[in-house]
């Protein structure tokens, strides 16, 4: 039997349902837990951010108009695809130091999280919307409406579960998003794009970039077509201030949910969905 030389995978980014390379032509080295070279990853540039935001904006109106049941079905489909590729993800997680049991738990939790939000798509409106008893002859109700394009600065230390925990509530609520994958462990994060791509998620609804938070955060927070930005890692005070300040240009919603325990019950909540919703109140007169 001849010896099989392993094919090393070249990781690319995920934009508009395609897997392009970064336009910058730059890369950075990704290491495994043994400090051995694992792969080269795309070092995305400002132009990649702009392309990804454009694709997210383009997908927004179509995705937001899907009915809640359909969005739930698609989220559940992502869970199915992840389940069927669990071995690959567990192997990936093991390269960055997860034990077999930990890797299995991480994949399990990620699948469960997707299913959790799949179930919320057709319920959050019922729980958080309202019919308002006004003191006049009007019918008046408040519905939640997705805010638009959400920038996600995914957590560094949880390349799968952390990423899934931020993408799922954003898209469950009809937003589209651009996520910046875990910087030290991008391969597991970008691998998740293949799951999305196989799951009926329309192109552009989720875009995943790889690169440096330090470099790209300002391009997200300064982008006039990004409506909200979320981060969950503890950032430096300078970076927090920069994000806050830049976000004032178009009054971005800045969501800070600092957490490192992605397994905890606090890491999943319908309030993660409402973080990216606008309340729209509609009035109509009542009469003949």
């Amino acid at each position, binding site marked *: 039997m001849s010896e099989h030389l392993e094919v090393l995978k070249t990781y690319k980014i995920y934009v508009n349902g395609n897997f392009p390379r970064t336009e910058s032509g730059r890369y950075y080295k990704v290491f495994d837990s043994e400090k051995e070279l694992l792969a080269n990853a795309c070092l995305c540039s400002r132009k990649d951010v702009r392309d990804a935001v454009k694709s997210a904006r383009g997908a927004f109106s179509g995705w937001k108009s899907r009915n809640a049941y359909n969005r739930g079905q698609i989220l559940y489909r992502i869970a199915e695809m992840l389940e069927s590729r669990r071995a690959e993800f567990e192997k990936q997680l093991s390269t960055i130091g997860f034990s077999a049991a930990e890797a299995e738990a991480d994949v399990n939790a990620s699948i469960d999280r997707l299913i959790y939000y799949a179930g919320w798509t057709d319920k959050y409106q019922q729980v958080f919307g309202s019919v308002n008893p006004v003191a*006049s002859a009007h019918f008046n109700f*408040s519905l939640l409406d997705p805010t638009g394009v959400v920038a996600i600065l995914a957590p560094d230390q949880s390349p799968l579960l952390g990423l899934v925990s931020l993408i799922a509530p954003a898209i469950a609520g009809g937003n589209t998003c651009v996520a910046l994958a875990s910087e030290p462990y991008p391969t597991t994060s970008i691998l998740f794009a293949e799951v999305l791509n196989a799951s009926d998620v329309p192109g552009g609804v989720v875009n995943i970039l790889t690169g440096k938070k330090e470099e790209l955060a300002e391009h997200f927070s300064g982008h006039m077509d990004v409506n909200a930005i979320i981060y969950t890692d503890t950032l430096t005070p300078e970076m927090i*201030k920069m994000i806050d300040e830049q976000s004032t240009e178009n009054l971005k919603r800045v969501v800070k949910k600092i957490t490192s325990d992605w397994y905890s019950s606090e890491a999943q*909540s319908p309030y993660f969905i409402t973080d990216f919703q606008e*309340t729209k*109140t509609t*009035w*109509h007169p009542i009469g003949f």
Partner: protein
Amino acid sequence: MSQTTETKETPFKPTSPNSKLDFASVWEYAPAPESTSHVEIKDRYELFIGGKFVKPSKDRYFPTINPANKEVITEFAEATQSDVNSAVKAARKAFKGEWSSLAPKTRGKYLYRIARMLQERAREFAVLESMDGGKPIRESRDVDVPLAAAHFFYYAGWADKLEYAFPGKTPEPIGVCGQIIPWNFPLLMLAWKIAPALACGNTVVLKPAETTSLTALKFAELIKDSGLPDGVVNIITGAGQTGAEMVNHEDIDKIAFTGSTAVGKLIQRSIAGTDKKFTLELGGKGALIIFEDAAIDQAVEGIINAIFFNQGHVCCAGSRLLVQEGVANELIGKLKDRMETLIVGDPLDKNTDIGAINSGQQYDTINSFLEIGLDEGADVYQSKCSIPDTGFFIRPTLLTNVSQSKRVVQEEIFGPVLTVQTFRTADEAIQKANNTPYGLAGGVWTDKGSKVFKVGSGLRSGVVWANTYNKFDPTSPFGGYKESGIGREGGLHGLSAYLTLK
């Protein structure tokens, strides 16, 4: 309204089916001014801190004028940094002390008490609101004051029911809230800010706008009378600098601001990097979409209410008319006729439809936008009504022959000025309506329910009024998408701005 009160001998006789009613020369209304005799206005108002009226540390005061006759009404204290400090200190002390240990239902009962006292003194507040701000007494009497009282009633009931508002969460008060309110609805905005803050167990430092602080200080008297613990509500007066001192104060936990988008951005910028929470209710450029199948006469009334309510000094004012081509001529004709019947004049006269522009500064801003409109090639139509010689008055105005990219279409004028554009398809109307950086309000007029829902859901704005406009109620969340703000006020959604959910 004409300044003369003489009645004509000859009754109006239509001479052809197309004759129009000529209110200005045929049917004069006799003046019906609301009496100001029993309203007490002091010569000077101090700051209200820790339950007492105190002199400002620098002993500086500024006058407030009645914009309808430019006469000085009274003067307000200018709060400087050390006054802001003492107000925040009083609020912090009250938050840690008596207020946080009160039973929630008692908190609610204070709010009920305030609501009732406001109703009892409704006429006084309405007169003062119109004198200080220039709005017609009809509006301050029928809208501002009753709605302000309704807000206190509504939020009073929430005080002991907060655990029902946010499923799965334990609500806790935030602490000391710094609240900055605008000049267009002084008393109503005060109620929008103070009522939910107190219901949730917070204490507040509120700064009214410098041109319209009078009812807030009257309200401070009422707070004193209500027996509310000292320091729970503090009211300080001053201009932008005082507001900036509040925004930058380290011991304020939350900033609630209503005002212009430009100032809102400044505020968000100055608290960048801090843990301060904030809500912003900012400007808008509301679109009124009139479809061919709408009830045209009702739509005309809706448009009048949308743009001329409170002289157009309304952040959610419908200031862009989008009318479907087939009915454009008919609608604009009827709109012009209706505009001719509007009475512009003394805010305290019960016949007045449109009062005085709030300040000299705003008067200049609106006029400069009219200049810009002319420069951009717009046709200007103004009602031929007479307006008083003194005071800041602007006739109801239509700008036709404008397009989407013009400044008068994109920017908030905040006056009785309506731009008019046409559209052919619903999609075009939605696109044009959404094509500004704002997203506060929109209106749709059509006879077809399915169209209301389709167009309403396409509008990127926090409020959609279908076949009506400018309606408010304490149970209804209000707030903006995009650059019209962050957060909601009113309803149970409005509570979240004043709670930490654990």
